[in-house]
């Protein structure tokens, strides 16, 4: 059935033979050429600029019912802008948008929703104080006579949708505290309840663990089977081949390729994205570990992580792997002093760090690049140079005031070293692409010359080329004697970059591998608890 559907959109190729109107024997899609379901959405030659920056030059996309269509491109290629145009958030400067009902101009998100377009963002925006069911039905809750909200009907409808998706979720709980994967499920439920024909997923898997990604794929298949068009945006090429039928590649704000995925290779896609050959990244050369830098002893936080002990040595990259929710980030945050812990010790170079004090941790030579760069890593309203200098204020002060010249020099130096692409250093950091923003966060910490750097998901949502640069940068740092503790959900990244891999499961260290011993299968089975119990303990 799904295979047949693939042929539908693929029929673009077949269409050359069809326009005459002879009945297509192609089953499933049922209709002949005249009735051959046309695209459910066509965006042509959309352009959008912000000030002097032309974010989208020539964006075109065509979606058919029943297909999962991949949209790929490097950061800054214009994908997000295109998505926001479809969502009605941005109004394009030029271009036309056609949906099944005809040409349409989306002046606001409500119009996009009315046109049957639902967008699932990488980090969904829910109402934390409202219930899951209300989040799905806000503005169109089922009513009783007298126009009151029928809560019971609303919850029943929500429960029915979750049941269809095969997801366990209580419609009556408030949304506060839901994991990102659960929040996406709520958004998808909302799209289904809206009977959206076009569902745009903007990097939905970036924050998900492997099992959650599988679950999401099941949902995508269910949506396709119901005839919806799914526009799937991801940086993970293997996911695109796993779930999508066609692909559109964007580069520098233009559509450069739209084709069925069949017959394409990962290399083809990457070439189209970067416009040049990108040699398969070799594993970074391992460093030579020196003295122990960071010692974590039996760190415990009630209900979050238990008895976590490990060492990071100078010049060593240690990865903390595991599923989202296994306690990786929480351990890192506790080590750096952001979160409290109940028992255990953290020592850096033999000095015990005070609990719950990032200031002491920083003074002792610890740096922390958080997972969520927009919320926690950057001050989006401030300039590039201010952000770079943010953690190094002490050295730039004279008589209590920051010297702008010193700040500028510092930022210029690091921007060059990290090859950050920017207009002017005084531009707002929010104008940079995701990859360059991440480099700014790295620069901020590197400028402090840390002895040990904790990086949480350093390449989430970053394009292939920049990702390779970040990996190279981390290895370079390790060779210079910096110890690195890296948290990552991407196993290829873990395997390529790290010298040692610690796997967490349900708040405990489940296994430890050297790079030579490590394999994706090994890490995954340790992380999901399929490892032979008793042998996995480090």
């Amino acid at each position, binding site marked *: 059935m799904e295979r047949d559907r693939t042929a539908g959109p693929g029929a673009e190729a077949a269409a050359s033979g069809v326009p005459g109107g002879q009945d297509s024997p192609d089953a499933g899609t049922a209709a002949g050429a005249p009735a051959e379901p046309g695209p459910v959405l066509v965006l042509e030659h959309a352009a959008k600029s912000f000030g002097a920056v032309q974010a989208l030059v020539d964006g075109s996309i065509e979606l058919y019912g029943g297909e999962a269509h991949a949209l790929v491109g490097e950061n800054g290629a214009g994908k997000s802008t295109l998505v926001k145009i479809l969502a009605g958030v941005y109004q394009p400067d030029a271009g036309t948008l056609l949906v099944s009902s005809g040409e349409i101009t989306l002046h606001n998100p409500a119009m996009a929703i009315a046109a049957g377009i639902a967008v699932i963002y990488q980090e969904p925006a829910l109402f934390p104080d409202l219930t899951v069911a209300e989040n799905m039905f806000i503005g169109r809750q089922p009513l009783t006579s007298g*126009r009151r909200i029928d809560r019971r009907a609303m919850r029943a409808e929500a429960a029915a949708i979750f049941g269809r998706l095969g997801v366990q979720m209580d419609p009556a709980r408030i949304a506060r505290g839901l994991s990102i994967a659960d929040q996406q499920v709520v958004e998808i439920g909302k799209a289904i309840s809206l009977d959206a024909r076009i569902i745009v997923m903007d990097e939905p898997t970036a924050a998900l663990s492997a099992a*959650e990604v599988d679950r999401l794929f099941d949902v995508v298949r269910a949506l396709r089977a119901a005839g919806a068009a799914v526009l799937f945006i991801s940086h993970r090429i293997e996911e695109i081949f796993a779930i999508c039928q066609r692909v559109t590649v964007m580069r520098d704000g233009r559509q450069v390729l739209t084709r069925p995925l069949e017959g394409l290779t990962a290399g083809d896609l990457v070439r189209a994205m970067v416009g040049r050959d990108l040699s398969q990244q070799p594993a970074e050369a391992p460093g030579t570990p020196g003295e122990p830098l960071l010692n974590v002893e039996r760190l415990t936080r009630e209900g979050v992580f238990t008895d976590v002990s490990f060492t990071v040595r100078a010049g060593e990259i240690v990865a903390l792997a595991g599923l989202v929710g296994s306690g990786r980030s929480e351990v890192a945050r506790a080590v750096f002093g952001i979160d409290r812990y109940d028992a255990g010790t953290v020592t850096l170079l033999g000095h015990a760090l005070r609990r719950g004090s990032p200031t002491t941790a920083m003074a002792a030579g610890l740096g922390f690049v958080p997972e969520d760069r927009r919320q926690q890593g950057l001050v989006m309203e401030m300039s590039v140079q201010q952000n770079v200098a943010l953690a190094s204020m002490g050295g730039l002060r004279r008589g209590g005031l920051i010297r702008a010249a010193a700040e500028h020099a510092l930022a210029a130096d690091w921007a060059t070293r990290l090859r950050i692409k920017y207009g002017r250093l005084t531009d707002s950091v929010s104008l940079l692409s995701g990859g360059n923003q991440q480099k700014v966060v790295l620069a901020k910490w590197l400028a402090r010359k840390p002895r040990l750097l904790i990086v949480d998901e350093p390449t989430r949502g970053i394009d292939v080329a920049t990702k390779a640069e970040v990996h190279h940068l981390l290895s370079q740092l390790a060779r210079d004697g910096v110890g690195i503790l890296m948290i990552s959900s991407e196993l290829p990244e873990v395997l390529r970059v790290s010298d040692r891999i610690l796997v967490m499961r349900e708040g405990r260290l489940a296994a430890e591998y050297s790079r030579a011993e490590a394999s994706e299968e090994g890490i995954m089975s340790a992380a999901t608890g399929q490892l032979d119990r008793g042998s996995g303990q480090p």
Partner: protein
Amino acid sequence: MTATLLRREPPETPADSGSRRLTERVFRIRESGIIVVLALFVAVTAGVQHRFVSETNIQFILVNTTIYALLALGETTVVISRNVDLSVGSVLGMSAYLSASLFGGHHGIPIPLVFAVGLGIGLGWGIVNGLLVAAGRVPSLVVTLATLYIIRGVDILIVGGGMVTANTLPGSFTGIPKATAAGIPDLAIAVAVVIAAGGYYLRSFRSGRELYAIGSNPEAARLAGLPIGKRVLFAFAVSGAIAGVAGVLWAAQYGTVDSTAGTSYELTVITAVVVGGVAIFGGSGSVAGAALGALLLSTINSALYVLGISDFWDQAIFGFLLILAISIDRIISVKLTEALRLRSTRRGT
């Protein structure tokens, strides 16, 4: 959580309804907390001074509460949408003077018309506030701070050095706060009904829930296509209209109205709202809680008076209560978020 996504189970499980119960329990605790503090205050004061629980004094407290509780209803509507209305005291003052002075000219003017004038004045200012916030996209703190001064200034220009005195007001008007049914002031009953209706509206109607949604996450509200401007304008119009009506009641209750009527009422009202458990950054809280907050504040005010303690302590105690309420809300919110998060991540493992 990861593993559970793969499992196909009926959506309703004990763990899940557990998180719902947890949330609901917390909110019930929050409101009953005010009642406990209130009961403590009443018990202790009554123990020292029996007069405090006399019928007259209870009636006095209830009538005194009505104006604050009404204003708290309007203010809650604004605050849950992540805004604030600082102009209510000034609106009350202008409405009190202008409506009361109507009797000076035409003694036979029907009282409902006087209320309509007060409501109109308040509604007008509420719409001005709402338009500036919703269409002008100026933060409500700044807009209503400005209108606080402007309205008070206009009021002073109109009133000059004059005042309306009780003897110019008809007895049927000044009698409104004194009427009782079965020992309970009519006014308190009427206000309780209005507040119950307001709470019901916010809880059970789409536009009411949308106010909560807007306050809970304005960005999400925009993406969901909610009519933010319209709703926010509505909230300010309600707050203004209620302040206008409260002004008329103020005139009926105190009789003497000059240009200082209602000065700094906005601070007491916001205190009542926050003490009553309405989140100052929007999204959660109830009008019932806010009304309880108002009742608590006027009870404390009266208790101190009965005990012969200086008025100055009022302010200190209000301040202390505010900090206490905010701390409790903060602790509850942190604990609740953590508990809910654990349920989300640990579920099924």
